[in-house]
């Protein structure tokens, strides 16, 4: 027993938070070697918490009805007791902002600080996806800009017109990210400035009179289809990017709004690809920190029991046939289990572990191994690399073959020697965002002709777009594009056209 308790009972005050923070800081940074952005901890009420996570955890957003809708949904389910509020929300920003709810207990505040301000923070700062794609020091400023820009547009052009653009851009926001951009960190601040300068330059230089000059007309023959597509950079999977740059009828403020939606979507894209790891990392860190606090006598048994209870409830994995269960894994449960398992493999490997993980088993450096994993993988590759037979057995994983021509499912792999690799491969694939998002691309547009935009959905076997939503979304595309839009669903193996959707902008 080295030091006295950080707190006693459930009440907390700022002294408690600060003492807890400092104690956690010693463990996390000195013992665990975490590297974090500076922290900012904000205490909020439950209503403010609802506000915050209504907009995907963005601390500031432009105004849009969909955030109101999400707020009402969350609020409704919270009020009726269907769901708890998140204990915390954390923003990938520098400084890293963690929101704590005022009605958490002292233990929960401590746990949440360890989870968010250290676990998530370390992950944001070190994981390669976040490093590559997001510029943590610029996001808050950018959101501030987005909010005021949209608001200014509303003043100038009316809420309805702005809303129409936002609605359409939101519908495409999952198709507004560069997925394979290489090293191109999203420096929102500079990017913003450069883009605006370029645009105002364009506006200054553009003079419609030139267009009416007689004489040299561009040749009607624009060139071959291949040439045209090459010049437009087609095929293009980032629909919002293409529309922002090429759509012929958009006003420049409309392009800017599309850009805002696109850049925010891009900013959140890494979070989709690393949810399992991010939550696993934060949970592992908080559990480890709380355990150390207990071991060193800084929290009492009651507080530690509360910690155990809350960790085990967030890491609960219902069975597939449980009413709350389903075909997806709880990222907290699986992430935490895998990371704890890595720790075990490093320190007390079994014979099986040595065969499966020769590089790390018995290296007696669990922290280094975990930090390496946190930095260099995303969910898909992490599962592919680190899901061990022991974890598969613990979750009693099995794989079903769903063949719609059969009347029943076939169990084609279980957690046994033959099944491990099959299960691991399939599970990893299910975390591949490229595998799960519909692959819709712009394939052609005839800018000199009828300006029809051609989209193509390369289907995966047996998966077509949900018709109703696809058509509604296509109406939005047509609204932005300004001319007819045609979407063909093409079988990626045979090239056969499976379905065609067409939409034209309404007469307005």
């Amino acid at each position, binding site marked *: 027993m080295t030091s006295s308790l950080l707190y006693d009972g459930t009440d907390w005050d700022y002294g408690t938070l600060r003492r807890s923070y400092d104690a956690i800081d010693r463990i996390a940074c000195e013992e665990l070697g975490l590297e974090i952005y500076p922290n900012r901890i904000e205490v909020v009420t439950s209503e403010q918490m609802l506000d915050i996570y209504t907009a995907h955890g963005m601390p500031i957003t432009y105004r849009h009805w969909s955030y109101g809708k999400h707020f009402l949904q969350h609020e409704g389910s919270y009020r009726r007791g269907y769901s708890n509020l998140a204990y915390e929300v954390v923003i990938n920003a520098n400084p890293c902002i963690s929101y704590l709810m005022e009605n958490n207990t002292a233990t929960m505040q401590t746990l949440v600080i360890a989870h968010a301000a250290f676990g998530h923070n370390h992950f944001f700062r070190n994981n390669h996806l976040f490093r590559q794609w997001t510029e943590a020091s610029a996001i808050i400023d950018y959101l501030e800009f987005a909010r005021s820009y949209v608001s200014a547009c509303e003043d100038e052009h009316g809420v309805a017109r702005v809303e129409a653009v936002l609605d359409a851009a939101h519908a495409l926001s999952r198709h507004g990210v560069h997925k394979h951009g290489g090293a191109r960190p999203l420096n929102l601040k500079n990017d913003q400035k450069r883009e605006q300068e370029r645009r105002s330059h364009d506006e200054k230089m553009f003079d419609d009179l030139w267009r009416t000059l007689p004489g040299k007309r561009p040749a009607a023959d624009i060139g071959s289809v291949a040439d045209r597509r090459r010049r437009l950079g087609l095929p293009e999977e980032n629909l919002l990017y293409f529309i922002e740059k090429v759509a012929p009828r958009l006003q420049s403020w409309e392009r800017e709004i599309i850009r805002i939606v696109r850049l925010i979507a891009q900013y959140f894209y890494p979070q989709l690809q690393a949810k399992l790891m991010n939550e696993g990392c934060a949970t592992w860190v908080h559990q480890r920190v709380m355990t150390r606090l207990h071991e060193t006598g800084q929290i009492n048994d009651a507080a530690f029991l509360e910690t155990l209870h809350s960790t085990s409830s967030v890491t609960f994995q219902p069975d597939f046939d449980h009413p709350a269960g389903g075909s997806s894994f709880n990222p907290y449960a699986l992430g935490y289990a895998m990371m704890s398992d890595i720790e075990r493999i490093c320190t007390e490997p079994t014979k099986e572990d040595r065969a499966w993980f020769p590089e790390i088993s018995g290296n007696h450096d669990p922290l280094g191994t975990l930090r390496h994993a946190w930095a260099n993988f995303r969910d898909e590759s992490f599962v592919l690399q680190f899901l061990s037979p022991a974890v598969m057995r613990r979750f009693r994983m099995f794989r079903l073959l769903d063949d719609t021509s059969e009347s029943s499912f076939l169990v084609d792999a279980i957690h046994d020697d033959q099944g491990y690799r099959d299960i691991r491969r399939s599970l990893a694939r*299910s975390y591949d965002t490229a595998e799960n998002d519909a692959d*819709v691309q712009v394939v052609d547009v005839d800018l000199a002709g009828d300006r029809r935009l051609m989209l193509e959905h390369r289907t995966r076997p047996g998966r077509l777009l949900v018709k109703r*939503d696809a058509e509604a979304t296509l109406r939005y595309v047509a609204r932005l594009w300004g001319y007819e839009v045609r979407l063909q669903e093409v079988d990626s193996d045979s090239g056969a056209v499976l379905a065609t959707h067409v939409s034209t902008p309404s007469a307005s």
Partner: protein
Amino acid sequence: MDIIDRRRNPHGKNLENRQRVLARARGAVARATRAAIDQGTLREIGHDQAVTIPAEALDEPSFHTVFSAGKRQIVLSGNHEYSTGDRLSRPPSSSGAGGGNGDGQGGGEGEDGFRFVLTRDEFLDFFFEDLELPDLVKSQIVAAETMAPIRAGISRDGAPSQIDMARTMKQSMARRIGLRRPKGPEVVALEAEIASLEESGDDVPRLLALQAELETALRRLRRVPWVDPVDLRYRRFTQVPKPSARAVMFCLMDVSGSMSEQMKDLAKRFFLLLHVFLERRYKHVDLVFIRHTEVAEEVDEKTFFTDARTGGTVVSTALTEFLRIQKARYPQDSWNIYGAQVSDGDNSSSDTQRTIAMLENEILPVVQYFAYIEVSAGGVIRGESELWRGYDPLSRRKPRLAVNRVSNRHEIFQVFRQLFGRKPAAA
């Protein structure tokens, strides 16, 4: 590390977003209510407890796929007893436990769950959002001839039966304290002390002082009464006009053979609309159904709409019946009277003059509003009908009479709005 307390920051950051989503929903609900009328469910909507309206306007669509055919592999947790090669029966619906993420998740994304449940009142509020009975305020004042007493505070004079004892005693006590009227027990104590001093005989100065004090006390007791007329307080009542919140709606309809079922359906819709509308405005709405052919009679609602007659048409008989019932049961000074007549416009030509005269001289003076709807089944308005020729010019002279024609049930609501819509104040 900074700790910032945001709890005192302004709350309701999402207030405007919430208002926007509600405004959007409102638009959708208003459209849905109109659609519901067109689809002929008015009666149910008007009388059911609640209606549920899917908020399609709040969809946020996106491109996403659903597994519909072919093969896929799903990894699940919690295997109990299965071995490789076992078969599981498919869950009954694809949203079941097994690999049901396909339709269950893909199709819905929670959108279908977002519904607005409206109570009947809310529904009707939407329904009548921008409808207003003509001159409603004025007509209520006009009709407000009964006076009712209401409590209006306290006064210093009034009838003995209206004395407010509590207030009176409060006043009296304040006065007694203010004038330092000695209390009974104090006097008794003084007398006792004087008696004992007199008996013992020592401390004469004190005895004298006490005797003087007692004398003053007794004098005060006599001068300051327990209850003085200035203490009296009475409950005050004042007479206020009591608005008549009752309305009666006379439904007049030609049920002769020339009125087809479709015409009666239109009439029914119109009357239902009017009834629901009046119900919104008045606490109590009476309904009187008068049908007529060559003769008129008062019937119940069911008979009114279902029981067909044959024979000629004499409209004035219905107006006569209207006046008879109105005089007998609905005196003008305590009822707001509305009339609505639906007809195909046929009348025996000899009767029309008489009808117009009755309407102008006897009926319009007593009603708040009288609406005439002419229905034609074919959708094509024929030439001017007998009644139209009479009513239409009259309606130009008399603002209380409104006339319109309708041939299709989709038009009913529009026509109703024209008749009962909010008029510009200047008009």
